[in-house]
């Protein structure tokens, strides 16, 4: 997907009134999204309201739940940052260098989009378990520790960063780089001062998407996390736990917290991005 590049849409867009179907398409879009997304999501809030404020507060600040926030946000953040670093690097290598099998590698990047997360979880657990292909060679344990969660979240988030940075990198004007070189800058200076600033909006977008996707990830994580309370229990699992105990109000309360968090993150990142790009994009 390409990703909230909408923050950088040209300001001088022509307002089209001759093309037909504005009311129809807008109506359909709003209706569809309302029925499928907004209405269901609003029931979360509705259900939460069955709790008193005190109960709500108690549920969402329960120590185990709070610990799960920390685990979830912490690992998602680290995974998103790993993805930013390696995703940008991979995008760079894919765009700038030629090597054997590049097309294949390029295609492979989409794998996490297409692979069921449960399968990914199982496969990654098999790899990183202490007796796994990779795990047995590592001096520290990966699966069933927060590290394992990070591995799973890195896996599912990778394409977001690569696929947002890649097209931008392809379009970063060769001229800018040449201008920099002709002004006497070396390669590193050109990258840090000219190319990287151009990539920032895309990287931010990729980061936001990878991060918010990681916050909600369930399928792959439960297999590899170990699910130890206070240590490796993620928030989506807490929601599941509440559900298994017939505690709908508790489950929706936590879900609302997550939803608000995702939304705020999306919003904050979009705003930052908008602030960054507003200055100098046409």
């Amino acid at each position, binding site marked *: 997907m390409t990703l909230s590049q909408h923050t950088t849409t040209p300001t001088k867009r022509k307002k089209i009134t001759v093309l037909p179907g504005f009311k129809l398409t807008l109506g359909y879009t709003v209706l569809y999204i309302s029925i499928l997304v907004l209405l269901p999501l609003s029931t979360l809030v509705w259900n939460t309201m069955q709790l008193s404020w005190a109960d709500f507060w108690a549920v969402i600040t329960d120590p185990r739940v709070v610990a799960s926030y920390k685990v979830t946000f912490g690992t998602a953040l680290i995974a998103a940052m790993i993805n930013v670093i390696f995703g940008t690097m991979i995008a760079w290598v894919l765009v700038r260098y030629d090597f054997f099998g590049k097309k294949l590698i390029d295609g492979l990047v989409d794998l996490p989009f297409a692979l069921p997360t449960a399968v990914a979880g199982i496969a990654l657990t098999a790899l990183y378990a202490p007796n796994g292909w990779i795990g047995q060679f590592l001096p520290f344990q990966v699966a069933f520790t927060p590290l394992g969660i990070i591995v799973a979240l890195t896996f599912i988030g990778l394409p977001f960063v690569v696929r947002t940075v890649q097209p931008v990198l392809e379009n970063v004007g060769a001229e800018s780089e040449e201008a920099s070189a002709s002004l006497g800058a070396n390669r590193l200076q050109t990258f840090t001062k000219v190319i990287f600033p151009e990539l920032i909006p895309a990287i931010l977008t990729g980061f936001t*998407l990878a991060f918010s996707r990681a916050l*909600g990830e369930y399928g792959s994580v439960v297999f590899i996390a170990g699910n130890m309370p206070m240590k490796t229990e993620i928030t989506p699992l807490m929601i599941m736990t509440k559900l298994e105990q017939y505690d709908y109000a508790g489950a929706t309360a936590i879900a609302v917290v997550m939803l608000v968090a995702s939304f705020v993150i999306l919003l904050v990142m979009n705003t930052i991005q908008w602030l960054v790009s507003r200055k100098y994009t046409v």
Partner: protein
Amino acid sequence: MVISLDSSKQSVKADPTSLKEPRIVRIALTTLSLLFLFIFLVMPLAVIFISALRKGLDVYVASITESDALSAIQLTLLVAVIAVPLNTLFGIIAAWCITKFNFKGRNLLITIIDLPFAVSPVIAGLVFILVFGAQGLFGEWFLNHDFPIVFALPGILLASLFVTVPFVARELIPLMQAQGTQEEEASVSLGANGFQTFWHVTLPNIKWGLLYGVILCNARVMGEFGAVSVVSGHVRGLTNTMPLHIEVLYNEYQFTAAFAVASLMSLLAILTIIIKNIIEWKTAHR
């Protein structure tokens, strides 16, 4: 991701060696990237296939032709056949609305379309229980009319639709934005009506991006686990989709069979990638 529709890319792009990193840096970066991809993408894939074929081809074939597996495959395909066209239609319409017109709240609409990306699949499943579950908003009504939504096909469908709402729209919006509206205007000024304009002008221009969005949407519909797991009810041979069936097999200690079905899904993922590459190649060589 945007497929780079780069036929317009400057063919006169420079490739002077003076603008490249030192060889050593290039090699280091490439190696590091490949290593990363190998560990994070190739190895898991290898695990799946090797585990699937560990007990030989016969077991493999048996695992994926066993009746529960077949019904899971059937269900998954059925869900895809319904969900993908619906979201494709939505994607096209939403993209048209968002890129061809300028209106207040446009950015909010895009954000809401994006929202399912950021909502945990568990929550996505949960909300449909809250709406259509027996204790939910409309649950009683549907129950009384003998039209089960959750723990049946419609629920699985809704959850799948929810998680894949943004795919096609998100693929098309930047593409259509980049292409602008001039060709459409030309078409209208030549006397074409709205549908003709869409069919003859817009669609051919976005078809590769559209196809790519559809492929991704399809892959995600088929692969969705978390959300579907919540609304499925896990009835063997009835409401288990392929990912759920994999979990079932896994829980029955039928690891080989589980990986066999998983490998089938991976094959799908790989097929997706191949088709995508063909698309890109076609786009580049037009």
